[in-house]
């Protein structure tokens, strides 16, 4: 079994999906000859031809809109939005169309479509290359929203998303492309080949959408995280010595309610971590779900650690990023309460 970066794992996932099903087509800005600005689609045009992997005009609404048409035809398009920050021009096609075509046509037409996009900060990308827009998709019924945290999951979830018969928003935490970044930006980068989750099986496998993974078992407090924040949470647990149970959601919607509820019922405490701005972010939904089903087991207020309610700044990237220090403080606070 090979160790891969997340980029390689995603490429491998696309490769497997394209080789097994000729209805899988891949396109987006710079995706064809060049292989995408993060090189995820590198080599696919050469292998599968220009008709199945190609460059698109810079028009996100057009990319998603044409992909909806293709999906309705019977293809399984997997398109790339160059940065999640640039998905908004396609928001109408996603929300008003992809998400609702099955419902409004009473199942007559369906949209098996995957929309990939790099998200999150930590690369000094400033306000337009750092956003995490999961909440504005999670609010929309009819969509599934996925965010892997490692190469193994990235491949398995991407294949599952492409094979899924509903539209999937596939967010790739770009700061994890090359290694399991835990927020210690001052330290040297750990590459995936030094991490067991960098092990990626050959060929086809898939990870069912809607299943969280417990990354660290613990008795004291449940930490709900996804994407880059998984490693930040793990680091915070280690550094504070608090016996946290760290849950990697993997799929943001549909949510693995069982795993979450069982864990919080066990620990009685909960910290939620995400990189997106706080207000009305997905952390609010997580907090609500936990409050609704575990109220009588909660021993302390649930705490959110998130990006601030400001655009992602350039110079103050690390003051904005919810790093292990801030998560650690939250863990301590939630343990002190009550």
């Amino acid at each position, binding site marked *: 079994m090979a160790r891969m970066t997340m980029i390689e794992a995603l490429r491998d996932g696309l490769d497997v999906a394209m080789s097994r099903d000729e209805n899988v*087509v891949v396109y987006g800005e710079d995706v064809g000859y060049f292989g995408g600005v993060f090189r995820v689609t590198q080599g696919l045009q050469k292998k599968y031809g220009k*008709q*199945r992997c190609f460059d*698109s*005009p810079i*028009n996100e*609404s*057009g990319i998603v*809109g*044409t*992909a*909806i*048409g*293709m999906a*309705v*035809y*019977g*293809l399984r398009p997997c398109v790339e939005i160059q940065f999640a920050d640039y998905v908004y021009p396609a928001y*109408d*096609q996603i929300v*008003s*169309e992809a998400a609702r*075509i*099955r*419902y*409004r*046509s*009473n*199942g*007559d*037409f*369906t949209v098996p479509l995957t929309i990939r996009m790099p998200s999150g900060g930590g690369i000094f990308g400033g306000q337009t290359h750092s956003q995490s827009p999961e909440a504005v998709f999670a609010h929309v*019924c*009819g969509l*599934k929203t996925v965010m892997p945290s490692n190469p193994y999951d990235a491949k398995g979830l991407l294949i599952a998303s492409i094979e899924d*018969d*509903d539209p999937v928003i596939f967010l790739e935490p770009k700061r994890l492309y090359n290694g399991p970044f835990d927020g210690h930006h001052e330290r040297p980068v750990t590459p995936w080949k030094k991490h067991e989750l960098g092990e990626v099986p050959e060929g086809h496998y898939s990870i069912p959408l*809607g299943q969280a993974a417990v990354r660290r078992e613990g008795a004291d407090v449940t930490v709900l995280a996804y994407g880059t924040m998984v490693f930040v949470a793990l680091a915070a647990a280690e550094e504070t010595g608090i016996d946290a149970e760290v849950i990697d959601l993997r799929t943001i*919607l*549909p*949510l693995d*309610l*069982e795993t979450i509820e069982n864990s919080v019922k066990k620990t009685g405490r909960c910290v939620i971590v995400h990189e997106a701005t706080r207000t009305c972010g997905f952390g609010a939904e997580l907090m609500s779900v936990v409050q609704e089903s575990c109220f009588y087991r909660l021993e302390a207020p649930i705490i959110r650690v998130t990006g601030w309610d400001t655009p992602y700044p350039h110079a103050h990237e690390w003051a904005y990023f919810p790093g292990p220090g801030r998560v650690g403080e939250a863990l301590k606070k939630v343990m002190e309460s009550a």
Partner: protein
Amino acid sequence: MSKAKPLSLYVPEPQCRPGETPDFSGFIVPKAGAVRRPDIDVAPAEIHDLAYSIIRVLNREGEAVGPWAEQLSDEEALEGLRNMMKVRAYDARLLMAQRQGKTSFYMQSLGEEAIACAFQKALKPGDMNFPTYRQQGLLITSGYPIVDMMNQVYSNARDPMAGRQLPVMYSSKKHGFFTISGNLATQFVQAVGWAMASAIKGDTKIAAGWIGDGATAESDFYAAMVFASTYHAPVVLNVVNNQWAISTFQGIARGDAPTFASRGLGFGMPSLRVDGNDYLAVYAVSKWAIDRARSGHGPTLIEHVTYRAGAHSTSDDPSAYRPKDEVTAWPLGDPVERLKAYLIKKGAWSEERHAQAKAQIESEMVQFQKEAEAIGTLHSGSGPSVREMFEDVYKETPIHLKRQRQEAGV
């Protein structure tokens, strides 16, 4: 430039408003038969003029003339006439049903029947329309059961959309009719994507996009043209210019361009303008564009010039913004009357047979309506199960939605 004069904002206005005399003197109608008919593989650059004229076949005497004529047999033309009459009769019944409170909302296509009916006739099975809410003619021409259209308008227990959609938002894959969106223009891009898929698969199916004059202002109209132009998508892009977008005259969307068809020129796309109230012309131009697409020559933009003879919808009263008699001043006449006159002139039809056919179609509609109403209308009879509300959000209902269904007690 020395000292400049103050600027001021130009806001276009229609020729006339309520209380004024309708005036179409600025609207130039070329003679029937006057516009040339290029080969289907013509280079777009060679036919720019076709975007600025109007292709017409039926002249005032009811004759089919010029290079775009003689495409349809008398039987075919008669079928077209019957289809248009059905659409008109259907609309009239449902409009009344809405007034009677049997449904919430209705939209008719009065005066525009030729466009959808003739276009559908030029398609082949397997092709796919991406329609707006004013192309019921496509569905009726393709033989979709009228009683099911009514079941949907009534949101009754047999509503093919299970009560989920607005009355007129039909859907039928089998009939090449994509589920109508309430959101304007989105479907135009999807049509291009569907056509691209056909090309990717090496099939021979083509797609048709539909949009109104007002909605051409939407960005997705252009997104569609960008993709269609770049990938030579086998698609026909139809603009139905019925002069009005609710209360807004077409000049607000069109701006300083003389026609909507001309929007296609900057995309290197053949762009044709056709008399939308002339069944024979619409058929001929549609067939030309469909053949062009199917033989691999790429997309065509067609502007169908017509007039929205009715209100925008049952929520609208056009007398607030346009002269009541504007429709009678409209220079392109009525599509049913014009095709009827042509067939009579040719000896294939008569006033009597027309009156008979009309009566027969109307009684058929009454029959269908009775059938549908026997099941239910929006507020009475039997409706779709409330459980349907929770189905088809996803292929499989996820746990949070199951919990909500439970909470709803259904």
